[in-house]
């Protein structure tokens, strides 16, 4: 496969079926470092499946995915999960913070899993929480903060390892429009400052307006609107 020049993550001809349900039917995708690409399309069209394939969470039935010059399919499970831990960050609709840990412990968690010392991990975590304007919540547990605050904590956690790709699936889906926009502003600012690429699945136009370009997924097929024109 020929990845577009300078692209960080590229997929071509992705197919994925769940039993009789075809979730992806020849989807393509590519993203450059520092780029924010919105993935739009109707419910059930295959957006989340595309994101899961791109992130190496779900193996496609066919097609190829190249990340930084390497084909994901040729990696073994351990290599793929190492890639997810160190190069990718994730934010989902519901923050998925660990309820027993404080916010700063949640943000520090990915670093701890990579073997960073507690002190060092929490120092970096606090720094990221500051950038997302939630450092004052460090000692609170997720159950004690608002939805919008929790989502910012989740964004800090996703960015704490300095990922090169941030995968966000409806990151503002559970927030009102003011909170959603603040999260988008902080998320895109933070990603731009580290030149991370952002794959942003959303059905909301106001959220997609924070992207640099969009692709539309319909019936498992993708359409790159920039290249279409």
């Amino acid at each position, binding site marked *: 496969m020929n990845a577009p020049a300078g692209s960080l993550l590229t997929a071509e001809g992705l197919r994925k079926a769940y039993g009789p349900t075809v979730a992806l039917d020849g989807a393509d995708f590519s993203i450059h470092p520092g780029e924010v690409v*919105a993935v739009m399309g*109707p419910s059930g069209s295959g957006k989340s499946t595309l994101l899961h394939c791109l992130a190496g969470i779900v193996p496609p039935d066919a097609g190829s995915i190249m990340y930084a010059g390497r084909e994901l399919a040729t990696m073994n499970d351990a290599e793929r999960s190492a890639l997810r831990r160190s190069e990718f960050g994730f934010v989902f609709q519901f923050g998925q913070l660990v309820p027993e840990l404080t916010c700063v412990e949640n943000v520090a968690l990915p670093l701890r899993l990579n073997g960073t010392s507690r002190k060092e991990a929490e120092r970096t975590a606090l720094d990221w929480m500051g950038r997302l304007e939630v450092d004052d919540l460090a000692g609170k547990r997720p159950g004690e903060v608002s939805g919008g605050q929790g989502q910012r904590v989740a964004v800090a956690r996703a960015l704490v390892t300095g990922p090169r790709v941030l995968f966000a699936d409806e990151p503002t889906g559970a927030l009102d429009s003011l909170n959603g926009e603040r999260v988008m502003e902080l998320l895109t600012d933070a990603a731009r400052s580290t030149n991370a690429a952002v794959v942003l699945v959303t059905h909301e*136009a*106001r959220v*997609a307006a924070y*992207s*640099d370009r969009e692709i539309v997924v319909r019936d498992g097929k993708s359409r790159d*609107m920039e290249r279409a024109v």
Partner: protein
Amino acid sequence: MSIGHTLLGLLESGPRHGYDLKRAFDEKFGHDRPLHYGQVYSTMSRLLKNGLVEVDGIEAGGGPERKRYAITDAGITDVEHWLATPEKPAEYLQSTLYTKVVLALLTHRDAGDILDSQRSEHLRSMRILTDRKRHGDLADQLICDHALFHLEADLRWLELTAARLDKLRAVVAK
């Protein structure tokens, strides 16, 4: 927007010269579209004729921009009335996009393509507004939000129509 009422409203806090009125208007409401001096003069002479303003003084040097205008009691009543009258919501019943979609279906063209390109065009505008909002002050944010919410409404209609294209195709074919 009614330029006359807006200029009148600006005069209510105190008399202003023509050039000062233009500057205040541009600063607060002009944004992309500053007033021409010609618009200011023609509007002010209409307001004068209708007794809603009066000339309160003329600066040395001549020229209409040197005139100082003051609002009259009739002018204040007029502003009051304008502010209290709700704007009629736009009806949005004549949609070019709807017409295009139906014609595409009638002529067996790809209506989905039309909707996709329109979404893309709308998003282009929304990105510009979002960016301006991000770097602007509160006034910019409110003005951009107004436009963003309207564009968003169009897009919601567009998604709904995209989801109903098969049904619409069947209806159109009859």
